[in-house]
């Protein structure tokens, strides 16, 4: 049972060393790959100098494209499981183990969720998360407690499906779509850290656009999509 940790990195020169060193020293049982998403800073050079496993994209593809690159790599190499892991240090590697245990029970996707046993705080940031959860519930009838969590683990079938298709971004609308199509999804309680260095991608305007896109996509567009099954080789 092989598991690949996919680390998409865009301008993460301040964080990448800490994240990868931690994985290498404390969790050598997992393979990892850094996907440098055409960073304009020194991310790729640092990785190459230190001999990290690196796929270096020559142009910026955005998170969806970068993560899909990692999944294509996992697909080609025949990995059984793959997990999306942030390069900014928000995700903690100690939770990969429990998530792996869970997915081995036969789930398609396991989400590293902040709100399984913990309560969701009533902050501005969580309004979006709540709206997306409600939209997902409305269209699929199923509860996802932390739909915006970026820490998601996929099994072999999902790796193939995500690697080979269009409109499979690592976002809540894809999760909602797959739930509707009958994929099995579980959540495992995790803790996340605040990013330590660098800047977050989301500002107010971008958050609004993101919410509009997600809600329209979950409530409307995903209902019309046809699923193309992918053969696992």
């Amino acid at each position, binding site marked *: 049972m092989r598991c690949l940790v996919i680390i998409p990195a865009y301008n993460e020169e301040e964080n990448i060393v800490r994240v990868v060193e931690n994985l290498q020293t404390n969790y050598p049982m997992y393979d990892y790959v850094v996907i440098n998403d055409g960073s304009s800073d020194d991310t790729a050079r640092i990785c190459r100098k230190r001999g990290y496993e690196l796929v270096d994209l*020559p*142009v*910026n593809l955005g998170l969806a494209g970068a993560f899909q690159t990692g999944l294509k790599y996992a697909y080609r190499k025949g990995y059984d499981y793959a997990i999306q892991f942030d390069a900014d240090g928000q995700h903690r590697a100690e939770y990969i183990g429990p998530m792996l245990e869970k997915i081995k029970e036969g789930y398609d996707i396991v989400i590293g969720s902040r709100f399984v046993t913990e309560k969701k705080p009533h902050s501005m940031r969580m309004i979006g998360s709540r709206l997306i959860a409600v939209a997902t519930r409305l269209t699929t009838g199923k509860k996802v407690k932390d739909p915006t969590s970026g820490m998601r683990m996929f099994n072999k079938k999902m790796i193939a499906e995500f690697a080979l*298709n*269009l*409109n499979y*971004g690592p976002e809540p*609308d894809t999760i909602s779509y797959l739930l509707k199509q009958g994929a099995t999804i579980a959540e495992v309680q995790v803790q996340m850290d605040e990013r330590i260095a660098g800047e977050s991608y989301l500002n107010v305007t971008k958050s609004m656009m993101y919410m*509009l*896109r997600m809600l*329209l*996509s979950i409530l*409307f*567009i995903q209902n*019309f*999509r*046809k699923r*193309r099954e992918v053969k696992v080789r």
Partner: protein
Amino acid sequence: MSPIFRVILIVVSLLTTFYILKKIRQSKLQIEYAIFWILFAGVLIVFSLFPWLVSMFTRLIGMQLPVNFIFMFFIFVLLVKMFLMTIELSALENKVKDLTQELALEEKERADELKSQREAENGSAGDGCIHN
């Protein structure tokens, strides 16, 4: 607005929506791009179902005919969209250029490496010959 114009608007907006959804279904369109067109079709439908909205806006900005407001509104929206698409097109062309150059340069570097390796091997072999 005349009833016929309203019917045309409704039919056109519904057809647009169905066409967009069909393309999404066939996985030919990214959702990011579909969002604009679905909102666009939505506005078309709203305008055709509630013409008083159009009349209100027409009066608000002091235009003569609601039809003119509709023309102006959509021309403006499409103009902005076209400009944004030009920006996206430029970015895309730039990416393709970068990508092509990157591939070609990589290829050349690999060829250079192979060549210098072979020369090094031949060179040492040739050396041996002369001295013998």
